[in-house]
């Protein structure tokens, strides 16, 4: 338990404000890297901020044939889940503000609540594209969730505890787990891309097929909250994988360069691949992802 006042921890520092700004900053880095890889100039530094403020200031259209209460609630719930997940993760290199035995499972569950909200939002509206987007989001959840969990279990088994804080401490003390468990790292990274629906796994919001999937009907605030949720989840996912596999996060500087290195790898992977069809993604995950993660665990147990 670190010593920052719980309220401050919740609102300002590791939670709330800091997270939203770092989410926007990471989104900007991500878009800028992709643009530079595509030989384009890329957006200015305040672009995500301008996008979010503009979306918040736009008129909110609530289409009929949609359960209005759910329509408004889902984005808020998604963002809330993403924000709470941040409390168990060693944000900015400091010790996580709350941690208890088994908070790894809770964090992973909270991270996938946002994707479930997205699926529900899609199913909620009567527009054809959202319905298809919803089915794709949910099928994708079932495909990447298991391998991603298994990949996260690797380091937990080695440290012998389910607490993120302890795993982080263990990772700092001895050999980087990326060298000890390379397959686990690979599956975790690619699992993160699946969770955040980054290309090549962006079938659920394939712009050229189903407009923008579950989010087609959303405009203004709802859409802004969903985008913020996605950014926050990007940051948390990066810190989680960095904490586990890149030898723990001791100081803010450590946190910074490790997560940005991971983001660079992520951006590179994003630009390299064409979008996979939904059945190809599911096939890839179950055949390769799950198997690799299992092999990794067997190696650990036998070791």
């Amino acid at each position, binding site marked *: 338990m670190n010593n920052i006042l719980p309220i401050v921890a919740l609102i300002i520092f590791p939670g709330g404000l800091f997270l939203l700004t770092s989410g926007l900053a990471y989104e900007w880095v991500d878009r800028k890297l992709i643009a530079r890889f595509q*030989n384009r100039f890329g957006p200015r530094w305040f672009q995500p901020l301008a996008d979010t403020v503009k979306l918040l200031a736009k008129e909110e259209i609530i289409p009929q*044939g949609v359960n209005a209460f759910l329509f408004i609630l889902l984005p808020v719930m998604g963002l809330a889940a993403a924000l709470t997940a941040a409390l168990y993760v060693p944000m900015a290199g400091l010790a996580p503000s709350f941690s208890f035995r088994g908070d790894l499972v809770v964090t992973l569950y909270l991270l996938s609540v946002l994707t479930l909200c997205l699926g529900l939002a899609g199913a909620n509206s009567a527009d054809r594209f959202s319905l298809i987007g919803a089915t794709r989001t949910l099928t994708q959840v079932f495909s990447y969730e298991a391998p991603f969990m298994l990949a996260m279990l690797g380091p937990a088994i080695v440290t012998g505890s389910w607490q993120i804080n302890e795993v982080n401490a263990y990772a700092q003390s001895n050999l980087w787990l990326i060298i000890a468990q390379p397959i686990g790292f690979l599956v975790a990274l690619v699992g993160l891309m699946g969770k955040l629906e980054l290309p090549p796994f962006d079938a659920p919001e394939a712009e050229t097929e189903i407009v923008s999937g579950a989010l087609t009907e959303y405009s203004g605030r709802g859409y802004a909250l969903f985008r913020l949720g996605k950014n926050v989840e990007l940051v948390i996912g990066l810190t989680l994988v960095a904490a586990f596999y890149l030898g723990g996060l001791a100081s803010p500087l450590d946190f910074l360069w490790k997560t940005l290195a991971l983001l660079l790898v992520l951006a590179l992977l994003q630009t390299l691949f064409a979008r996979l069809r939904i059945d190809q993604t599911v096939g890839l995950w179950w055949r390769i992802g799950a198997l690799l993660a299992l092999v990794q665990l067997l190696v650990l147990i036998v070791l």
Partner: protein
Amino acid sequence: MDKQEKFIVPIGPQHPALKEPGHFEFTVDGEVVTSATARLGYVHRGIEKAVENRNWTQAMYMLERICGICSHVHATAYCLGVEKLAGVEAPPRAQAIRVLIAELERIHSHMLWWGVAAHEGGFDILFMYTWRDRETVMELLEMISGNRVHYSANLIGGVKFDIDQKQADAIRKGIDYLEERTRHYLEIITTDETFLGRTRNIGVMTSDQAKSLGAVGPTARASDVHRDVRIDHPYAGYDRFPVQIVTEKEGDLEARFIVRLKELFESYRLIREVLDNLPDSELTVKVPRKIPAGQVISRVEAPRGELFYYIESNGSDQPERIKVRTPTLPNWGTVLSTAVGLKLADMPMLLVGIDPCFSCNDRLVYVKDQNQSLTEKTWSWDDLRNHGIERYK
């Protein structure tokens, strides 16, 4: 599956996959498409009617604007037809310049196409890189004609501008750069795993299916059908600069990519040949204002396939009738028959596979799905949109 309401996915008329308005309804069962219908006509501007009360030269400017990507080819077909009617022959240098600009336009059209096709498959980096390289050919066209898209090089009886030595060298330099880039793209398209996952043996069309459906251009040549007007019936300068046919066997989406890329190598060779031995003669020949009565058929190979012009004149200075049958028209039949059985996610790729040019044609093809007996409640895009409108009032 019989009593359940068919799930209709309307794509278009406004849809990010389509750069132009066309309305497609795919009846899907889960992700698999069971039947496809198209409703076009959003770009119908009544050109063939308007042309009848314009004189011969005015008509050309209108016909050029049928399609932004293949405007030169429309003008060439029209001018060749009218020159044949008037019993006049454009000078050899003009014919050679027509071939040169036709090939440059083919490069510009094919590069545009596989950039957009890559974007459909979610492969945006190829889209960006291809369109960056396409700027070279746009600059060449602008250097020669002063305009990037509608270069209107043609006159009835000749060509408007000449190619001097400095321009020829700039074209050769541009072509060398493009050839090296095209080799690079051909290598990417045939090896990149994720892209192959989207194109290999999808929308396969056998060669006799292509023949019976009357497919034309690269779409037919990808299914090993030897149809290329530049070879069957050489027009303008193509008899002096022969073309070799480029065909593929498989007839799937990947083959269509490869045929178009290989055709570009053919275009580069042709352009160098034209530039090396450009016959010197004057640029235009005198054509009477009133074209003598008669009718003529003029066929030209547009980037997308065979373009068919039927021109009839009644001796006055206004055409009696100009019928334009554009290459995308017969290719529609092939798309909507190969669509059955594929996945919904493949539809944008399939639609873009034949390089559809809606402005060239606004036609409709209605293909009944096999199980006729289904009672289906089709919710067309209009009903969906009407429903949308009442909601927000």
